[in-house]
């Protein structure tokens, strides 16, 4: 077994702006100019982000600890290969708006 933080070369914090667990990650239509900069795990993460996917779904799919996935994502963002966007519903004041709450309520009732 590989020590999880070996993948991140010992880094436990990522660079750049912090992002939420349910932030949406989307691969940008960019090209990898320097494939040597990427570990196989970066490539796996990048492939999952070809459709907009949340940070937590990516962590679950690649079966790597969340902290490691965050660092890999921040690397990809620095290389301009992914865009990470805050959850739409919580952008304002960190509170879910009432219209969305009602939609959630209706959705749950319909389950």
């Amino acid at each position, binding site marked *: 077994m590989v020590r999880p*933080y070996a993948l991140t070369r010992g880094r436990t914090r990522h660079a750049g702006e912090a992002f939420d667990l349910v932030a949406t990650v989307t691969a940008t*239509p960019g090209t*990898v100019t320097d494939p040597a900069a990427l570990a196989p795990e970066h490539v796996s993460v990048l492939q999952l982000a070809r459709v907009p996917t949340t940070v*937590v779904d990516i962590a679950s799919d690649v079966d790597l600890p969340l902290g490691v996935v965050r660092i890999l994502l921040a690397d990809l963002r620095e290389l301009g290969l992914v865009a990470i966007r805050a959850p739409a*519903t919580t952008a304002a004041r*960190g509170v879910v708006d009432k219209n*969305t709450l009602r*939609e959630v309520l209706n*959705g749950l009732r319909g*389950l």
Partner: protein
Amino acid sequence: MVYGDSDVATRRHRAIKILLAGGFGVGKTTLVGAVSEIRPLRTEEPLTESGIRTDNISGVERKTTTTVAMDFGRISLRNDLILYLFGTPGQERFWFMWDELAIGALGAVVLADTRRLADCFPAIDYFERREIPFIIALNCFDGARRYDPEDVRIALDLDPGLPIITCDARSRESAKQVLIALVEHVLMVADEPVAP
């Protein structure tokens, strides 16, 4: 290598977080599994100062991270609206995880076992201090003595307006009702005038 597709890239996802807190063995995993597609998620967090104090790592000097397993479930309510449930470990040493989960969360459910009510004190305290709306769900285990929710309110010194409901964490319908009760409560709180 070329990645991305401008059509999907413009799609707007809406992800909602609901936290499920409570003591060890209270039924968090059961409830998440009853109502959602449960998925594995682990976090391997660097040991913090406080973590080092609680985790005895003497003789394992190279261990610098600690694994926290979380229950994580997702419910697709609509194509673009997904509900994420996070079952969070109740002990105070995991609060660093809660801080992260709590930001922008819709609200929280504190799952309680009436035989071990004190186990949910830290969670109640946490959500009250951060003004995160929450409800209490009493998981009625087989053979467990059923308490009147009002007795629990007195025992936990809870606000009269705070919903306390009973549930069976194994039942999909019951778990669904817990989530509905939370969202109704959050909507009601949102309508209240802000205290001066």
